[in-house]
């Protein structure tokens, strides 16, 4: 049997991480928090929007061709790669976006430590360059295209694909 004191400590241990996640959108680990996903969708929805990222490298003839993104970020598995790719490997311009207007992001920026130093970024660029060359590309430039893809429901056919952002990473600089 647990005493009242132990019960109170248990309540605190269980509730504090959940409160941090609920009120500050910061996920502590480890914590007794299970996946929720409370979002909803229209039942008669006929379209679904998804943001996709496409990577292009320059081939020998000077044309941009599709890069195998999974091979670029091996050994990270696909669900993690999606996060990394959406942030342009954390070395592109979008990693510097300042969301200072949001209180939780002010808190996050104050508490987090900047580890993305010059050496680490250079190593990553070198690795990406090496992996680009190993896929047969002849240039160290990597073009990143972000699309908003509209998919039909049911069926899953692509109705439209709109380019929303285009940037080039120069891995030599």
């Amino acid at each position: 049997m647990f005493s009242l004191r132990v019960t109170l400590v248990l309540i605190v241990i269980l509730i504090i991480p959940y409160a941090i996640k609920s009120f500050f959108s910061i996920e502590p680990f480890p914590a007794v928090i299970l996946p929720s996903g409370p979002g909803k969708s229209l039942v008669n929805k006929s379209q679904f929007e998804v943001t996709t990222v496409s990577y292009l490298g320059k081939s020998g003839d000077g044309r941009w061709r599709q890069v195998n993104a999974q091979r670029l970020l091996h050994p990270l598995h696909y669900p993690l790669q999606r996060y990394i790719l959406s942030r342009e490997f954390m070395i592109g311009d979008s990693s510097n976006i300042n969301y200072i207007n949001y209180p939780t992001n002010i808190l996050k920026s104050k508490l987090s430590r900047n580890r993305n130093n010059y050496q680490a970024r250079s190593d990553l660029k070198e690795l990406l360059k090496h992996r680009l060359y190993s896929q047969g590309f002849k240039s160290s430039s990597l073009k990143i295209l972000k699309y908003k893809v509209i998919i039909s429901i049911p069926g899953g056919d692509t109705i439209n694909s709109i380019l929303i952002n285009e940037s080039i990473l120069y891995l030599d600089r």
Partner: protein
Amino acid sequence: MKAYYTWIDNLNTLFWTRVISSTTVDVKSLCAFRIVLGATLLTLYFPSFTWIAEVPKALFNPPIFSIANAFDELPGIVFFMTLDCMILLSLSCLTLGIKTRISTLIFAVLCIIGLSFNYSFGKIDHGYTLFYFTLLCMSFSGWGTQLALYPDKLTKYDSTIKSLSLLAVIIAFGMFTAGFSKALHWIDFDMTWNGFLRWYIDSYYGSGKKLYLASIVELLPPLVLEIFDYTAVLVELSPIFFLLHSGKAWRVWLMLICILHLAIVLFLNISFNLNFFAYLIFIDFSWLYNKLINISKLVLNTLLAFFSLYFLVRLYLIFSQQQMVTFFPGLRPKFDLYFDIIIWLVAIYLIINHLLVSKQNRLKEA
């Protein structure tokens, strides 16, 4: 004030008395289950983290409240190889019953450390939460006192009933964290909006998860989809009531959650396979104990020889940095999902069997 304190204290006593009476399992059953858990992890879900050392350091971006955040940079290969070796050693000791209390604790802590680094690239996956809390709770359950090569001696810190009741409360709270925000949004009595459908569209069209029954979801009428929403919320918010009601009710809830997990695999192709251990620990495995205790010395020695060989192969895989069977379903999604269906069907069968045997025993006693 004193009367108020006494009232709260009595309430606390009543709460834990009810929880304990609902979760009681014989320690022999836990000892048998420990071997099942250890053998399954060693063969099918061995946690490996050596691959993290190959990830470029610039991608290391741990969450603020995480063990990994104490590190200035991603540790090197020696750190992760040592971690994997210690995981292999502690898991082997847990399975064989060598200093089980401390090896379970070490195994759980090492998994948490490894997962902290695994979750340092932008995404925390809480799918394994119940699993490592099961290990932490079972460290002091006395599950290493029998069916062990070097049995633990019971100390004042060991308590089967406390371990099980604590785990049950953790499961109930965990489910609350999953169900509460769903309840706020999904219980809307509006059939034009649906929560389950959002999960489905994300996984079917967003992640390309199209196995099993996924393709029939779009044929379901809105009323059925609405029932899915309310069922999920009810199952996730109700465990505490089942727990406080009776042992039978608690096992019925465990069966319901296993059915929900099976439905998630079939319709959404999403895996929560390690939760299996957290739920089945409350099922009576005394029948397995009776079988294992009567194993002949020859069979036992043969099994130990195989185990030693397997241990060496695992060690070789760690040092040669080869891809191993790991926690991460991303490496082998189809195999994991096929196996998940079997796992949840077995779990449902075992729980129903437990309920039927308990009923027969009650009738005999009457």
